[in-house]
């Protein structure tokens, strides 16, 4: 996955943003120069822009439509074009949810084909429309069509927030593995809540991305 641009796409609420943040931070920790692009024009709350200061402190470059403030205008900032040039290290893109969210990516499609990209479909099999292999397949097709980008891998993100147990991860990951076979897409990594990583580590072949939550409900802050 050494391609300069790494996109995280997926159905609404599949965990794209947390995955993108944690993934970008991991790259940064490895010493890479990383830009995190918030391209989510459909989500209204709990977006990268709410934690961007914290992320900058941790060494990420962050591009968000911040100038627009808290307005639901689906506008793309010009800096994104610059970042996607891929000359300044790695770029991690948090794309909006489902087909409608993926559509804004379409404008960068031919550009990304030139510079090279990875397109990860983040799947949480505990979300309403991706509990089955058929659902995952449908969601993937919709996102690929809307963004005019090819899916290159799945990211398995089975969880029930605070109620996640090892069984929850086991059962959910099984569904994503099945989808991986059916779609012919490898699983880039399995997302696991940081405190459960130790227990899960030995169970699976897939690489594991430990997740720390950044976007919290007000009562969790």
């Amino acid at each position, binding site marked *: 996955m050494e391609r300069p641009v790494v996109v995280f796409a997926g159905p*609404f*609420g599949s965990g794209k943003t947390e995955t993108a943040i944690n993934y970008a931070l991991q790259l940064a920790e490895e010493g890479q120069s990383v830009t995190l692009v918030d391209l989510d024009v459909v*989500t*209204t*709350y*709990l977006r990268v822009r709410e934690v961007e200061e914290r992320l900058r402190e941790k060494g990420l470059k962050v591009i968000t439509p911040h100038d627009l403030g*808290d*307005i*639901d205008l689906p506008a793309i900032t010009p800096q994104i074009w610059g970042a996607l040039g891929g000359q300044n290290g790695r770029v991690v893109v948090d794309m909006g949810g489902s087909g409608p969210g993926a559509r804004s990516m379409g404008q960068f499609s031919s550009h990304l084909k030139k510079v090279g990209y990875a397109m990860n479909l983040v799947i*949480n099999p*505990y*979300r*309403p429309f991706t*509990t089955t292999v058929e659902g995952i397949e449908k969601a993937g097709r919709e996102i690929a069509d809307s963004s005019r980008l090819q899916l290159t891998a799945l990211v398995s993100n089975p*969880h*029930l*927030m*605070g*109620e996640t147990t090892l069984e929850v991860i086991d059962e959910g990951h099984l569904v994503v593995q099945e989808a991986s076979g059916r779609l012919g897409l490898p699983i880039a990594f399995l997302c696991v809540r940081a405190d459960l990583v130790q227990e899960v580590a030995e169970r699976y072949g897939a690489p594991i991305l430990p997740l720390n939550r950044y976007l919290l*409900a*007000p*009562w*969790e*802050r």
Partner: protein
Amino acid sequence: MAKILMKGNEAIAEAAIRAGCEAYFGYPITPQTEILEYMSRQMVELGRTFLQAESELAAINMVYGAACAGSRVMTSTSSQGFSLMQEGISYIVCSEVPAVVINVMRGGPGLGNIQPSQGDYFQMTKGGGHGDYHVIVLAPATLQEAIDLTILAFDLADKYRSVVTIIADGMIGQIMEPVELPEIEPPQRPDQPWALTGAKGRERNIITSLYLGGPNLEEVNLRLQKTLDEIKANEVRYAEHMLEGAEIVVVAYGTAGRIAQTAVKEAREEGIPAGLFRPITMFPFPYARLDEVAKSVEHLLVFELSAGQMLEDVRLATRDRLPIHFYGKMGGVVPSPAEVLTEIEKIASP
């Protein structure tokens, strides 16, 4: 029953579907648009009625029409759109037909912003439109509760032949939580001899909110008030946390209630005897129970995402017999539990 991870708006939409909602009419407005989008797929796939109206005015009047036919019907909107629906809601209430309206509140007044707020409390609980009426107002604080209350809303609408609303704020609409979706049998609904289904084999039915002459309209109003009395007697709901030995009780609902719950827990850990009283029905407001609770505590702290609207009902409930403190944030600002804890601490050691 397996758990599933849902966003608040989706959970409300799915709950409505499971409650047997036959028709949905709506208009997009952030932060509730996912309800409309969810319905646009699921209702169509189930062969039920979905229509995106040209405005909130049209949407509520489409709801009115479908309600006149006896359908289980719903719309959803956010604050600005809810203002536009007031006319229709007043007509529906006076016509005594059942409907469910979801309001996922955002910042106001005016165009405001899209952040979570509780600034519509007055409009929702005190009538909102013209004339003497109230609608039932249900306030969820968790997504599981949002599901349960949405289902309840349809049953109460049927029972009282009136409008039942869900008062949610943007945060409830947008957060995700694991929930259980109940499998529901087809709803048992009361007979609807009043419905407009064509005058076949019976006298014609007329549904109107026009009653010319004083005595006629007075009679209708007296009947509406009687229904409200029944609602007040039967439908008061609330939740209580850590009231045992509490000396400072926070009164908060919805997202504010959720934040307050965390703050109260932290206060207890610091040795401050705090508790939480969380109204679930904002209308009918739990006046009597809150009055009872207030008898054994020293202070109340009302916490709202507004300038202090529910505050007035708390003062009414307790008739200002004890110190009532207020902490509120407007314009879509959502405080953290730590900020609420600070308010509690100030009261504990002034």
